[in-house]
């Protein structure tokens, strides 16, 4: 069917290639997710699959999974070529790296990359970044979060090593890995899945080139980038020119307790160009909340411009991101980065809030603003003698919107198709009982359109073990409202040990507890949008009937009086109460 003489790019070929490139990274992603060995990959989708050109341009990336991996593999490719030289690769090579000097994330995020050769030349790298359940040190589970003071304490550092050389596995390196990580079967299984996904991507790319020829594929990619850029420009063009700013803060970095971390975004719109300047965010910290990433700015830009379009290098050509060296998000090695992603959802919301007055269709109020609600409990399984780990990410409330209430119990803006762990899955694998997973009444920020609700998950551990209950650090600056809306209730972690007499708020990592202790994982409600006194009293009544808002909160926050016995709105009482505010 292929036209042998085709050198010009016809529209149908462009359309096929336009869809085939994301389909390749999606197919890599589907295989990785299904064959992976840890919930961070198969449930949380804490990975990305991508095709990256040798110059670092992102050709395509999978849809779904965590958003803050957007277009962030280019620097890794550029660094690989700088280290090995443009001629330093053979067919069948596979690189492994997690070094923070360039990768700038926690060490659990292991990048595997394979050069794709066509006619003896590298046309791109087929790549998978994925979260390993352990890389030694204190990295078990979701990562060491804020508990380390340097990368050596965090875990094993791998700097652009060839784990496979021209098709031959590097057995020495594999032995080093096996001996230095806690769940070697799981992580080396994930490594196998990552390599297989890279090989699949490489095969698909080779098929595409064989079918259409390099010239046509390259023309198509250039055209696809140009179109992606234009689509973004068309949206930004509609925003009035100006300089927009907003601020927020995180409670602290976990080390210097009580010392807030300022977050500040300055957004400049000029024609169809946008500059997001994050210079006003905190300098890098001694606590492990540092990173080297433009993800906050890029996620916000993507959400505001072309949320439904595939991601490629063209998606960010009309965006300039300013983050000076030494900033918390452009920290210099060896700054501790194990809690690297902590500030990002707050940064995204701050950028969105800055643009709130400028966007014609409006923006939602703030969402939970953190990457969980994480459940992390480890111990030894009494039946198998094996180490087990309970992991789940719980969603929280999203902000009210100009036209409707915010959704409840949904994961953050940095997490897309990230799913909580089913209670039954957790209990099949681990000796715990999940006693409750429920919405938190009255957690939503009040507003004409209220925020969504947070959740409470109550877990009892049946055997002794260690809880990670490290606060998400947005208690001082809970999800804010917009246009008169109220903030949502903040998140918390609570712990009760046998005989302790009740639950207490805690901020601990790898905290030893006896059997029959209970933890509550509590997520924030979203901020409200608009004046709560303008909310339709019938909607308040509905929320009361459903048990989402208490009778007291109906009166206190919304000025709505409800007849207890008949569960109807007392309109006269409501009018009087609202008039008195």
């Amino acid at each position, binding site marked *: 069917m292929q036209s042998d003489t085709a050198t010009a790019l016809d529209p149908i070929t462009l359309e096929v290639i336009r869809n085939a490139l994301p389909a390749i990274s999606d197919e890599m992603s589907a295989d990785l997710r299904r064959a992976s060995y840890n919930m961070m990959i198969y449930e949380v989708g804490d990975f990305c699959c991508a095709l990256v050109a040798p110059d670092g341009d992102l050709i395509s990336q999978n849809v779904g999974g965590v958003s803050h991996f957007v277009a962030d593999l280019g620097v890794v490719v550029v660094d690989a070529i700088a280290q090995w030289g443009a001629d330093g690769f053979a067919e069948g090579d596979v690189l492994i790296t997690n070094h923070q000097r360039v990768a700038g994330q926690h060490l659990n995020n292991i990048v595997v990359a394979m050069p794709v050769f066509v006619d003896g030349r590298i046309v791109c790298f087929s790549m998978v970044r994925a979260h390993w359940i352990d890389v030694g040190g204190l990295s078990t589970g979701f990562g060491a979060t804020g508990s380390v003071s340097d990368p050596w304490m965090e875990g094993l550092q791998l700097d652009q090593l060839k784990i496979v050389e021209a098709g031959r596995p590097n057995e020495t390196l594999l032995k080093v890995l096996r001996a230095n990580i806690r769940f070697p079967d799981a992580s080396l299984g994930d490594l196998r899945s990552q390599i297989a996904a890279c090989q699949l991507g490489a095969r698909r790319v080779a098929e595409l080139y064989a079918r259409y020829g390099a010239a046509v594929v390259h023309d198509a990619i250039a055209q696809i980038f140009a179109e992606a850029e234009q689509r973004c420009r068309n949206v930004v063009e509609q925003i009035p020119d100006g300089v927009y700013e907003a601020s927020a803060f995180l409670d602290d970095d976990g080390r210097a307790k009580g010392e807030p971390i300022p977050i500040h975004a300055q957004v400049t719109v000029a024609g169809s160009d946008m500059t997001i300047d994050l210079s006003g965010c905190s300098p890098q910290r001694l606590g492990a909340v540092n990173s080297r990433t433009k993800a906050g700015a890029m996620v916000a830009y993507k*959400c505001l411009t072309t949320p439904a379009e595939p991601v490629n290098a063209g998606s960010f050509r009309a965006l300039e991101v300013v983050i000076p060296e030494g900033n918390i998000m452009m920290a210099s090695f060896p700054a501790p980065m194990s809690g690297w992603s902590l500030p990002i959802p707050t940064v995204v919301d701050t950028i969105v809030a800055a643009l709130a007055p400028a966007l014609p269709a409006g923006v*939602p109020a703030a969402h939970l603003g953190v990457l969980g609600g994480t459940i992390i409990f480890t111990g030894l399984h009494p039946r198998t003698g094996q180490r087990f780990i309970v992991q789940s990410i719980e969603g929280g409330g999203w902000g009210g919107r100009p036209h409707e209430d915010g959704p409840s119990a949904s*994961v953050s803006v940095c997490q897309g198709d990230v799913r909580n762990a089913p209670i039954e899955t957790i209990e099949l694998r681990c000796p715990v009982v999940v006693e409750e997973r*429920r919405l938190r009444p009255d957690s939503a920020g009040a507003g004409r359109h209220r925020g969504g609700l947070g959740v409470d998950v109550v877990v009892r551990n049946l055997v002794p073990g260690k809880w990670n209950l490290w606060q998400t650090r947005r208690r001082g600056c809970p999800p804010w409202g917009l246009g008169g809306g109220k903030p949502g209730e903040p998140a918390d972690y609570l712990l009760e040990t046998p005989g302790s007499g009740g639950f207490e708020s805690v901020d601990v990592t790898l905290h030893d507890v006896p059997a029959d202790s209970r933890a509550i994982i509590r997520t924030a409600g979203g901020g409200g949008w608009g004046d709560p006194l303008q909310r339709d009293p019938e909607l308040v009544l509905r929320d009361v009937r459903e048990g989402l808002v208490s009778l007291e909160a109906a009166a206190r926050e919304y000025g709505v009086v409800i007849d207890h016995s008949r569960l109807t709105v007392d309109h006269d009482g409501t009018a009087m109460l609202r008039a008195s505010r």
Partner: protein
Amino acid sequence: MGRETDFSIAVDIGGTFTDLIAYDAGGARFLHAKSLTTPHDLVEGILDCVRRSGGQLADAGEVVHGSTIAINTVLESRGSRTGLVVTRGTRDVYAIGRGNRPDAYNLFFRRPRPFVPRELTFEVPERTLASGEILEELDEQAVIDVCTELREANVDAVAVCFLHSYANPEHERRAGELIRRELPDAYVSLSHEILREYREYERTSTTVVNSYIGPIVSRYVDALGGRLAAGGFGGQLWIMQSSGGVMAPSTAARRPVAMMESGPVGGIIAAAEIGRRLGFPNVIAFDMGGTTAKASLIRDGTPTVADGYHVGGYTEGHPVLSPVVDVVEVGTGGGSIAWIDEVGALKVGPRSAGADPGPICYARGGTEPTITDANVALGRIRAHAFMGGEMALDADGARAGIAARVAQPLGLDELAAAFGIVEIATAKMSLAVREVSVAKGYDPRDFVLLASGGAGPLHAVAIARELHIPRVIVPRFPGHFSAVGMLLTDLRHDLVRTIYSRIDEVEPERIHDAYREMAAELATLIDPERLRVEAFLDMRYAGQDFTLPVPVAEHELVAGGLEVVRRRFDEVHQRRYGHHAAGERAEIVNLRVTGLGRRAKPELQDTPTPANGAALQRAPVYFARGAAAVDAPVHARDRLQAGALIEGPALIEEYASTTVVFDGDTVTVAPTLELLIDVHD
């Protein structure tokens, strides 16, 4: 159980039409009929269709039936008032779902809208553990108290989903007894009876959907059985499932959730079969009926079947875990209404005039112009030839409606407006075809487009040209194609049970016991004499989550046999993902047992030779915007000989459909009388 028979009837109810096809094996003869779907009384439409076909219900050994009633009840939120009873602590599991947001960058995403509001969700004290042990006994008085509240809330249906009921269903069973005793008129679904598989949200959602549609669908199935019997039918009624197999009506009444895609799936089974017989293993099945158009990909002769899907789409829809053939659907059918939006742009669909009132040209009170009206205005559907002339169309009315509602507001002439409606519809349907092919990296140039549905052959060639698909096949009976497929299916039942264990630790007898129980259940569903049982163990390496189905035979459910299965899993993993780990621990998660019962099927090529000589007519037809009408040949399909060659432009008319062929396209009639159209590129 159904007896083998010489005469079988298949009836497919769509949003607009009810299609019937019957096969008489003795005379190698097909009967067919079509009538308007009667939404107020679907059964009446079936009986009307039987009367029109000239067949006798009393002669039929089998009636196979597929219907959109289940899916329409969900999509239109017309289900029953349903209550939900759950384990203490899990009231919000159904609302919270998995907490995910598939549209990663969408700040305005929406979550699925629950079919049970929080105020009708009740917790009762009880708790079973993953091992099946009871941690807390069921509080029976609490169940009875909940029943009082459910009664006061006037619910028609109840769903019960307790944690770990797949491992030990005792509490669910007991609660079910109490609820059925206290609320004898309520439709009750217990989660372990619908889906005995772990993951509480997906199981709850599937069970809730089953209860939500249960009262409506079970009443419908009962009424159908009764009315067929009253009409003299003494054979076996079968109901089409989403999986492509059929089930008994009593099963359908208990598991209506298995009927969700009951309508379209027949056409895909038939498309795969016809493609295979003609030597085209790679087929895009395209079906356009009265309300929607659907596309599905068939590779190497096999339709894609999934373990389940999200009704209403992955982003905002409801998970229903019941095997289903993959389909992409858009709201564009013959009855889709053309309208002008608030900024003056012309839109087509998704609202449909349906069967009642239907398009303007049906002259049944419709006032809004539809795609069918546009085709009538362009001369592509001839008013006096529609459905073999059984139903005369009002062409003047169609033209006047297009003029008033579309042409005048837009300042166009009536023909340009009709062209615009058809072109917009073509573009929208091309997107569905693109989604199953190009969007998944398949080049449509490697496929044939098999067009069915009453309106499919009218538009298929234009869609193929837009996507550079080189060939279109129009099968026989395109307007009854889903019904044709129903005659080609087997009985099928899929059972699943979670048995979570390491394969080197499990007592094989535990799996074998479950197998025997499930096989015994299948023997109550399918005549044991023709029952063939296939079993699979869903397996994975310890630490993985997704599983692969590994085929297993009953005699392997012994200690040594499971070692063979273990090695087979390595092979399956290697084939699917390109790697395996023979040294690692492997786990069993589910036992899946499928029962199949073969049915006698028509050999479609055994067709009588048509009458000699095409009865050729001519008629004015508009093929291209801005060009004058062409005095085009109009062929009667049932007069076309095998091997005949037709050059476009032309119309090929048959009872329930018309094929439109353009200038430069050529049609060859296959030996088995399908139309093979080479599309001019």
